[in-house]
């Protein structure tokens, strides 16, 4: 039993890690705390629904559709909401992402109706037995895909020219401008990537549950994940995600389904009080 819970915790944690990674990419690039990341996860689920059920696309095409739609949405958000507010107070920028989440939620509910929609993807939903353990194939697939995505983006950042320029921009905006980097393009790219990562997470969460705006609160778990792991740290975000997934599953199984929230958020509070830069972050003077 414990093995199973650990496995599903890690599997879900991988999805959270993916969403958290998207969040950190956005944060490192534009220093924006994207409260709408949870809704971008929901968008992913609905893009999947649209692709499969409404447009009748074959599954591979649906994936392409989800990625493109999310990328465009992310770039759009940066161009029209984030860039105009560059240099404004933190409250304004946080508020704009919160307001964005309100707007996206409303648009989704108006377009698709307030009920959740079931996703019917060809993703495997069976179970296979490993000794005593019943491993959910969907969980396994979700974990594998999440890790592949993370690896892919890791490689992108480390080995491509554009990835290098994005890392440079995240390191120092001013140095980037001085070096001839077009900051706005880099930031837009970061938002596109962050949205795509969230959307992929949404695809799996949508298949695991439903495509519905209720997924937002699950998507928002990326926020404590990121803080626990370390806001500016990519490995931190991923490990934070895994931790949150584990805590969620362990508390849901052994204590009660509703108790997971409180463990996660109490841990968040503890980290904020004791080690605000996260488990893997680095203490930076004046940041906190």
């Amino acid at each position: 039993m414990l093995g199973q819970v650990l496995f599903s915790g890690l599997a879900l944690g991988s999805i959270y890690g993916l969403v958290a990674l998207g969040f950190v990419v956005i944060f490192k690039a534009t220093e924006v705390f994207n409260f709408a990341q949870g809704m971008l996860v929901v968008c992913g689920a609905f893009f999947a629904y649209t692709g499969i059920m409404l447009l009748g696309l074959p599954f591979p095409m649906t994936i392409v559709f989800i990625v493109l739609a999310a990328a465009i949405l992310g770039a759009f958000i940066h161009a029209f909401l984030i860039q105009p507010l560059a240099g404004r107070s933190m409250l304004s920028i946080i508020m704009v992402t919160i307001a964005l989440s309100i707007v996206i939620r409303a648009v989704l509910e108006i377009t698709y109706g307030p009920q959740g929609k079931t996703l019917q993807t060809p993703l495997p939903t069976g179970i296979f037995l490993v000794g005593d353990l019943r491993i959910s194939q969907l969980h396994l697939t979700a974990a594998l895909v999440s890790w592949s995505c993370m690896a892919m983006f890791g490689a992108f950042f480390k080995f491509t020219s554009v990835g290098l320029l994005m890392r440079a921009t995240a390191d120092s905006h001013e140095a980037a401008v001085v070096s001839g980097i077009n900051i706005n393009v880099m930031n837009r790219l970061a938002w596109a990537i962050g949205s795509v990562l969230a959307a992929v997470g949404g695809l799996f969460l949508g298949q695991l549950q439903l495509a519905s705006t209720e997924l937002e609160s699950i998507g928002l778990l990326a926020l404590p994940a990121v803080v626990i792991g370390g806001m500016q740290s990519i490995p931190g975000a991923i490990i934070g995600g895994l931790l949150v997934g584990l805590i969620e599953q362990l508390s849901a199984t052994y204590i009660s389904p509703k108790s997971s929230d409180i463990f996660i958020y109490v841990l968040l509070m503890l980290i904020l009080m004791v080690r605000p830069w996260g488990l893997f972050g680095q203490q930076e003077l004046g940041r906190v």
Partner: protein
Amino acid sequence: MSTSIVPLQKSNLGLKIIQWGTILAILAYVPIILTDRAIFGIRLSNMQLLNLGLTQINLMLIAMLGALSLNFLTGSAGLISIGHAAFYAVGAMTGAVVGTQLGAPFVLVLLAAAITGALVGVLAGLPSLRVRGLYFVLSTMAVHYIVVFVFSEYQYKFFDVVGVPFNEAQIAGFAFSTPIRWYFFLIATVMAVYFGFKHILNTREGRAMMAMRDQELAATSAGIDVRILRLKAFALSSAVASVAGVLYAYYLTNVTAEFFNIQFAIQFIAMIIIGGMGSLGGSLIGAAIWLLLPSIITGFASQAGVTTGIVQRMLVDNKPQLVQLIFGLLVIILLIFAPGGISGLIKQVRLRWAALWGRS
């Protein structure tokens, strides 16, 4: 409600009395209009009354308390918080324990709610001693989830899924049995809170709070203990929000944990941004808009007559979603183009007006 526009001159005192007299008279007559659905005997249609009933006005008044307290915290003291729904929950829970379970009189319930709210507020504000800005917002998010969890556990332990019930509110035998009675009580409360905050912001400590918001280093070097000030601001703001919560609970006579979700907390932030952060009058405007939007849309829908397709879906079937959509867009547009909110715009219009008329 107007705050002073021009420097006071002696001849303005008479003008102010007339202004206030009129405002009070209107405020007193409004509930009568809404209950009778007529003004001075002339019948008014639902449309003309913007589809408003006294219930909605009362809910708006309670929301005003929430907006004012959040504005005090965020707009004046500079602490961003998305935990406001949690403080409503604290108030409701206190009301349930002290009022429903222990049967204490209403006044005591309100007092208890204020005190509990202040205490929880101080606790919630403690992280501000350690972290700032972004991280602090997250701590308020954690506070939200923790408090709502506690409320949920409380609800299921002592009551059931239907919700937590509340007795009828009454003060010294005078029962709040009709919306009109609630109305006058709430108007008095809102005015007390509004002028209370206004007064506080004019004291030395209040101005220190605003200095703290703008330039923390400068405030500290001026000898003000910023940390204690922050906790005080949090305590006061949470106390008022908690009272709003218990009033809300008593008005609805039944609440469940689901009421106090993050979306609810976000409504208040939207209200103060639309109204104008740092402006108390703005909070009132923000809460009023939050109230009026659904009614205006319903009015729109019925005016448009027979509607089909998308329009029908948006205006009628999905009205709450449309309200949220407009609300969110309004926040975004104001943030980008008019960061001072509606009260900021009014101020600009007034300045232009004064300039236009010339000043002798």
